[in-house]
């Protein structure tokens, strides 16, 4: 697999965000996007019945584990502080849902079901697959 350039990465992130808005619009009320990029989550959505506001983080992956299942990295890497690269493990309390795009399916995973801090295998979350309406 080719290494994505910085612009390719941003372009792909925007495409995934756009797909998330399209897929989640029928499921939630009042989707909101940030005026400035947010580190912890990318979309706010209001549940139709309880009006609860959910924080949704959006990720995409094309990486496969040796088992053949798609793997998505949860760990955030970016920026430097005193010549040391900043890396942050995933904190399940930082968002309520994880929207993941793989080449095959879309997933909406409750973050409370995620115990890993660095990466998850999507084959564990087949019950969270989103079926486009």
């Amino acid at each position, binding site marked *: 697999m080719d290494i994505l350039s910085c612009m390719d990465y941003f372009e792909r992130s925007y495409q995934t965000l756009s797909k998330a808005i399209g897929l989640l619009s029928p499921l939630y009320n009042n989707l909101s996007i940030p*005026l400035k990029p947010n580190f912890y989550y990318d979309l706010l959505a209001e549940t139709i019945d309880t009006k609860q506001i959910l924080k949704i983080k959006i990720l995409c992956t094309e990486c496969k584990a040796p088992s053949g299942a798609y793997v998505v990295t949860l760990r955030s890497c970016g920026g430097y502080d005193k010549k040391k690269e900043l890396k942050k493990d995933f904190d399940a309390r930082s968002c309520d849902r994880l929207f993941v795009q793989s080449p095959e399916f879309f997933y909406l995973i409750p973050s409370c079901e995620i115990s890993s801090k660095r990466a998850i295998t999507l084959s564990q979350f087949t019950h969270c697959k989103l079926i486009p309406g």
Partner: protein
Amino acid sequence: MTAEVKIKICFNNGTIKKFELSQYEFKKFLDALDLVDTESFILNGITFNPKEIESIWSQVYPILVKYED
């Protein structure tokens, strides 16, 4: 005709509040955020400090499109 801007503000303490602002109120809000020395301002009757704001979110407005063959 008056247009409303629907925003949500996430605060540092984790709370999220919804606001429906007129275009004038939204402009005043952005101006207040722009000023370094703004200590507090009132939005829909709620007083807060810009430093308490973690992020500001704008509602996505879905557009219904009718497809015709």
